[in-house]
């Protein structure tokens, strides 16, 4: 082999990002050269983004709180279903005055009710909030994952196979996009529930959850499908896909090994944007009265109740509202940071 070739290929490291801190090479006798994958580079960039790290910590904290809701309520000694204002067991320590408004300052803050109590019933706001977050977050994660998977599968199929397949998947996507979403959420929820349960009987909570899942899923996968399709369309024409075809790879292998790793970035970014908006949608459904109902603790239901009480007891809305604002803000900023980490060229 010619000597310039050797010289070209023998440098210790080529084209590393100059802005990154050097990675400590393993200081063994024989130096192992190991490249950093785009994923590792992304992780390094992400770690240096302080906003992103703080937001990621916040988001993780929310999930931990939601998971540990039973533990937290054990700590506070309250639970979301007990009516502390009406239950005769708690007559010794009244939380409501004669008008049904919380005793004490700022919605009845006290050692036993950390975030105050609800007017009229006297339920503990802290317990309702952590359990409500639990409901909302788990619902949102479930719905978002379903939406993502559907969108990814349909987008991959449409984008990779193209032609007639793509045409029909595209038309179905357009059809679903044409629905006025908010109206259909409200209009369809009772319809879907009626599929499972006689309207005259009471609907079990899990059925309400399933109905919400179905409605939000059916009306929410289109954005993901469009995004994945367009990414795959451009990837499909890249020469490395042709190289895989020339080597005889099956379409399934090409999709799995060549294309899917390259669409992970937009999928992850889209996920971090979709999840908080799904939480808001679920809250909106409960607020509009078609989501979860009494007595299931739910974030959105807290707002629905808060709207009722806001004239007498504005403090009731403070903690649930603050929690939601912080969460959505942190998740959206996290989405931005993830995008920046994946694509260092997109400056701010």
């Amino acid at each position, binding site marked *: *082999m*010619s000597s*310039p*070739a*050797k010289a*070209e*290929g*023998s440098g210790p*490291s*080529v*084209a*590393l990002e100059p802005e990154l801190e050097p990675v400590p090479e393993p200081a063994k006798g024989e130096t*192992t*050269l*190991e*490249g*950093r*994958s*785009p994923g590792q580079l992304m992780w390094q960039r992400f770690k240096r983004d302080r906003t992103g790290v703080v937001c990621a910590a916040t988001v993780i904290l929310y999930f931990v709180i939601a998971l540990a809701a039973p533990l937290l309520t054990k700590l506070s000694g309250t639970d979301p279903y007990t009516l502390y204002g009406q239950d005769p067991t708690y007559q010794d320590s009244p939380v409501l005055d004669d008008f049904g408004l919380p005793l004490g300052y700022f919605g009845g803050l006290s050692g036993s009710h950390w975030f105050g109590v609800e007017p009229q019933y006297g339920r503990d706001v802290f317990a309702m909030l952590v359990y409500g977050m639990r409901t909302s977050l788990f619902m949102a994660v479930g719905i978002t994952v379903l939406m993502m998977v559907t969108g990814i599968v349909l987008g991959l199929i449409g984008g990779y196979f193209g032609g007639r397949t793509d045409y029909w998947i595209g038309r179905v996507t357009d059809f679903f996009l044409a629905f006025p979403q908010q109206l259909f959420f409200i209009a369809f929820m009772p319809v879907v529930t009626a599929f499972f349960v006689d309207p005259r009987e009471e609907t079990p909570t899990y059925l309400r959850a399933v109905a919400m899942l179905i409605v939000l899923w059916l009306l929410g996968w289109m954005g993901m499908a469009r995004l994945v399709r367009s990414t795959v369309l451009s990837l499909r024409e*890249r*020469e*490395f896909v*042709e*190289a*895989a*075809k*020339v*080597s*005889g*790879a*099956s379409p399934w*292998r090409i999709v799995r*090994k*060549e294309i899917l*790793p*390259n669409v992970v970035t937009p999928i992850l970014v889209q996920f971090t944007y979709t999840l908080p908006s799904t939480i808001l949608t679920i809250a909106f459904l409960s607020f509009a009265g078609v989501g979860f109902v009494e007595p299931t603790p739910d974030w959105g239901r807290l707002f629905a109740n808060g709207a009722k009480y806001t004239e007498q007891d504005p403090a009731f809305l403070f903690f649930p509202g603050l929690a939601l604002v912080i969460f959505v803000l942190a998740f959206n900023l996290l989405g931005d940071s993830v995008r920046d980490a994946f694509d260092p060229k997109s400056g701010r």
Partner: protein
Amino acid sequence: MSDNLTLPAPQGTSGTPADALLEVKGLTKHFPIYGGFPIKRRVGAVQAVDGIDLTVGVGESVGLVGESGCGKSTTGRLITRLLEPTAGSITYAGQDITHASRRQIAPVRSEIQMIFQDPYSSLNPRQTVGSIIKSPMEVNGIEPEGGREKKVRELLELVGLNPEHYNRFPHEFSGGQRQRIGVARALALNPKLIVADEPVSALDVSIQAQVVNLLQEVQRELGIAFLFIAHDLAVVRHFSQRVAVMYLGKVVEVGDRESIYNRPRHPYTHALLSAVPEVGVDSEAADRERIRLSGDVPSPIHPPSGCRFRTRCWKAQDKCATEEPPLVQLSGNGDGHLTACHFPEDPTTGSRGDDIVMDPALMAMEEGDTPEA
């Protein structure tokens, strides 16, 4: 051309190879154009490749040249079966693979490989160099002696890269190094034929020479046949034993290197060769003929009738518009030197009495200059 003497036996310099590895007959690719509303129907076709015949012998390297958009790359993609031919036949080692499905073609798949033009898009950015080179072996279930990883390291060494780069990612390499990785991937399956689609045109000139030399070494040492697609005549001259010249989806002239470069007959080949800038002392340079064509290649949607080059040819007559010239061996041509022209040029590249300048703007400019000179 002293290189020829060092070539191994099967790659004789004669135009017709003794043992044909790949035989292409009447290969045609028309890309349909759809239009109309509301019901789309076929309104025409881009005749990218229109009935070309080509033969590649065992261990032979054939160059395919022509200007942009003449169907060179389409031909390469048809042969590697990335595109479905509209008509014609492709025969590889006696087996018809023209319309073979993925499963049917599987046995010979590993023997026909491709090197791509753009080293930046031909390597998957999410895979390590090791897995890029390894994946063709995985697909074909090849288990080399000592394991796939060992084979990959050998291949990396063969193409002049450090085997330690096994675990690196493509973005850590320069263009030339990436193209070497592409070569290593093509070699992973021990192919018998490599279609190289402009393998060096995306690289800078100093790297081009390295990669071409690498390919040449590979070709000689491993006896791999090459279909070398390029628009750089100098590179093709350096690399190929036989050369086919394409114009607007047709082969207009084919022959061994010597014939094409020193005794071309087709006017288009003359024009193409005369367009190559040559460095030399003035007196030397003046020896070459000077032909400057005007305009662009006509649209492949509505190619000219008869001879496709006639719209830009200085020798065109009525016959050229009505009758398509066959690709035949003209009197005075060497063995296997075929030309498709009714009125061929003299077999020389030497200077003629006066320059042929078809471009009116250039002509006007030069006429203005003359009196002052």
